[in-house]
């Protein structure tokens, strides 16, 4: 007779196999992220060098800047572990903790949300807010409530964004030279002009095709819809994200933007296309609205999350003060992840019946309410002349 080991069923698990565990998911996510990093480097480094507008070392700067953010994040996490966790006092223990914390990822995501000429000290501040405040203080990987990278980005935006713009901001040397758009990203321009007009909004950047390819000014990672779509297909193929979340998000923004165009006398399809191709929408939809830790876990919850984020993005972008709405919309919805997750889990497991109909209808009504409000409010915004602006919200 021999004594055998104890364990719990099931005894066949994907996580025991190679290439099916969380490590693989994070690796595949990293590969998708690297596509964006490479494009950012191509657009802001290689293309500028090819046009002869910078030196070889300056060409490397975008890549160094992004990777630096990643390394800073790992470094800060290491220091945090060292200070708070006795296990991290040995090299082996520290390595084990860092291995399952994936600090590099939020650092890189943050860098991709920032303009090229963000001063390094601001980057360090952003990484600190991202990894220490946004992630480690909540309990580390898997426990954070807010998307860490957005915490960093919002912290920079609300405090020192003027410094970033003064230091050079979004424009890479190519764009500075051929500046037809007065040094503004499409959405900054839009929030200054407050008008729905193709010649004013799209023409300065060439055409919508440039929006799709990504050769317009903007934060490092957000400009190219094409590369982000490639990353999307990679993620879906590797089952890193659920395929429908980004699609629902983008579809809601598309439809609402179209409606806003129509009620303001511009029925052309260019406006909703401009809406989904400008700013960080694509990047946010694929990389942040699908982020597993801070978004609902069950499929129905993910659908509702995407619908709400879409509606809020439109509300914040077209009705709010800031040019961009993606980051704020996602971070606001992060707060509601837990309640959405729970109520949709109940709805999904029992089906629609007397008990679940009320919460379900409340969710739907709230969603419709936000959408209708955004569309109605836009009439005030865009049909009156721009000088009325300040007093209307």
């Amino acid at each position, binding site marked *: 007779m021999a004594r055998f*080991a104890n364990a719990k069923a*099931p*005894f066949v*698990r994907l996580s025991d196999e190679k290439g099916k565990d*969380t490590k693989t998911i994070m690796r595949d996510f990293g590969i998708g992220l690297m596509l964006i990093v490479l494009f950012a480097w191509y657009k802001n480094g290689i293309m500028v060098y090819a046009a002869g507008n910078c030196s070889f070392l300056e060409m490397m700067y975008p890549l160094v800047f992004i990777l630096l953010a990643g390394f800073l994040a790992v470094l800060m996490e290491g220091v945090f572990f060292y200070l708070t966790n006795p296990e991290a006092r040995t090299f082996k223990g520290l390595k084990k903790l860092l291995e399952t914390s994936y600090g590099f990822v939020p650092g890189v995501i943050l860098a991709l949300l920032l303009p090229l000429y963000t001063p390094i000290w601001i980057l360090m501040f952003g990484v600190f807010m991202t990894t220490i405040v946004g992630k480690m203080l909540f309990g*580390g990987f*898997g426990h954070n409530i807010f998307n860490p990278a957005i915490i960093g980005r919002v912290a920079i935006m609300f405090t020192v964004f003027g410094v970033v713009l003064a230091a050079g901001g979004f424009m890479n040397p190519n764009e500075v030279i051929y500046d037809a758009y007065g040094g503004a990203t499409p959405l900054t321009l839009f929030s200054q002009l407050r008008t729905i007009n193709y010649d004013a909004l799209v023409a300065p950047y060439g055409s919508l095709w440039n929006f799709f390819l990504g050769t317009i000014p903007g934060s490092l990672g957000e400009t190219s819809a094409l590369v982000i779509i490639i990353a999307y297909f990679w993620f879906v193929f590797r089952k890193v994200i659920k395929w429908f979340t980004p699609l629902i998000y983008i579809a809601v923004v598309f439809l609402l933007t179209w409606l806003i165009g129509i009620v303001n006398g511009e029925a052309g399809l260019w406006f909703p296309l401009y809406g989904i191709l400008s700013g960080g929408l694509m990047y946010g939809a694929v990389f942040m609205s699908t982020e597993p830790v801070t978004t609902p*876990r069950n499929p*129905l919850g993910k659908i509702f999350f995407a619908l709400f984020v879409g509606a809020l993005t439109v509300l914040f972008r077209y009705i709010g003060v800031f040019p961009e709405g993606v980051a704020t919309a996602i971070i606001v919805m992060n707060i509601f992840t837990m309640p959405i997750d729970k109520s949709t889990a109940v709805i*999904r497991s029992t089906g629609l019946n007397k008990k679940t109909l009320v919460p379900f209808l409340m969710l739907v009504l709230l969603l419709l309410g936000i959408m209708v409000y955004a569309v109605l409010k836009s009439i005030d915004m865009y049909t009156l002349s721009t000088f009325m602006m300040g007093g209307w919200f």
Partner: protein
Amino acid sequence: MLLKKVKGIHIEGRKAMSKSKHIYQDVNPQFVYIHLLQQTSPLKKLVEVGDKVLVGQVVAKREGFGEMPIHSSISGTVTAFKKVWHSSGKMVEAIEIENDTKYKNDPSVVKELNPDSLTKEELVSKMKEAGLSGLGGAGFPTYVKYMSKSPIHTVIINAVECEPYLTCDLALFKTAPEKVLKGLKYFMKAIGAEKGVIGYKKYNHEYPDLLNPLLKEYPNITLHGVKDVYPAGWEKYLVEQIVGKTYSRLPAEAGVIVDNLATAMVFADVVEQNMPLIKRAITITGEGIKHPQNFYVPIGTKVADLIHIAGGYEKGLDPANSLYIAGGPMTGRAILIDDLIVNDTLGGVIIKPLPEEKNHPACLGCGKCSDVCPVFLAPTEIQRAFESKDLDSIKKLNADKCIACGLCSHICPSHIEITDYVVRAKELLRKGA
């Protein structure tokens, strides 16, 4: 409702090691141990130490709900009452019978002269007297299902065997294909169903190959292949696939009774030979077994004897770093001492080395557990409610619907014991309510 269709997922079968082997039927155990436990009901013993017993003689009976007799699987002498290991992971009292190796039948075991003339009631009472219970793993007394008041139009034979590793049903089937059809015919007669369907996994071509030539004589019986997914052998999935209807608690609501393949084969013997349930098929397999194979043995045989016949453990197997699994690998139980006894629900014993130890991160919230759940629960939410002992939420989240199929733990990329959390939440609900 949104996204509400059970899809199941493909799990690597790992059945090849024991699948092609012939079933071994000549086990001659020195002792058998009849557990005084059926499902969760303790049994009342009807013999004393020193009594002579014959094959098929009643030695114990289940009382209360599902009352029925339990029979001796060999002939010989009752030598003791002992506590032995049961597949539920506990030690259970059992009747020890020493084998006289004569296998002399009890006088009640006689050939039925005209089995086709039996009435409904006679067939159901035969099920009861034979102690027939579901051999698929639940061990539910069969006759209780056949006393159903709802109209039943179809009897489904579950030959899916969706658990990885296990091949005993297929091996048993190959020994006598016609018995399945006979058993099914009697089942249909016992409840007055006009249709019979045998559900099997499509890649098991043995079923159509061996059954199609015989089907001419059984006009109301058809075959139905299902996809190679887990949990395709789950009653609800099978009923949904074959009849296209679903139900909330019992298949009878959809006009269906589901029985396991081996149960049907035993029932053929019950009707025609009056031979009660005394033997079952079992797979001894796993990476830790030298020659994995299938057995057809008297209930109460020591698993250690079977492992011995299967060539013993693989050389260099370290028990402390290996698992001894009673049942299938998805829903089975790890047994700590390798001294298990075959009981009516034990379909397999799997010996496999523990997986390599890994540094697993925390739950990242990917939601794959919700995606695969065949009853559409949100395991992570139930875990959260369980950790805060929030009974109200556990109830709202329908934790009691969990069928403990193990898919959520199977798919979890962070190796979280999520199935166990849900099962414990379910227990908490039962105790608290």
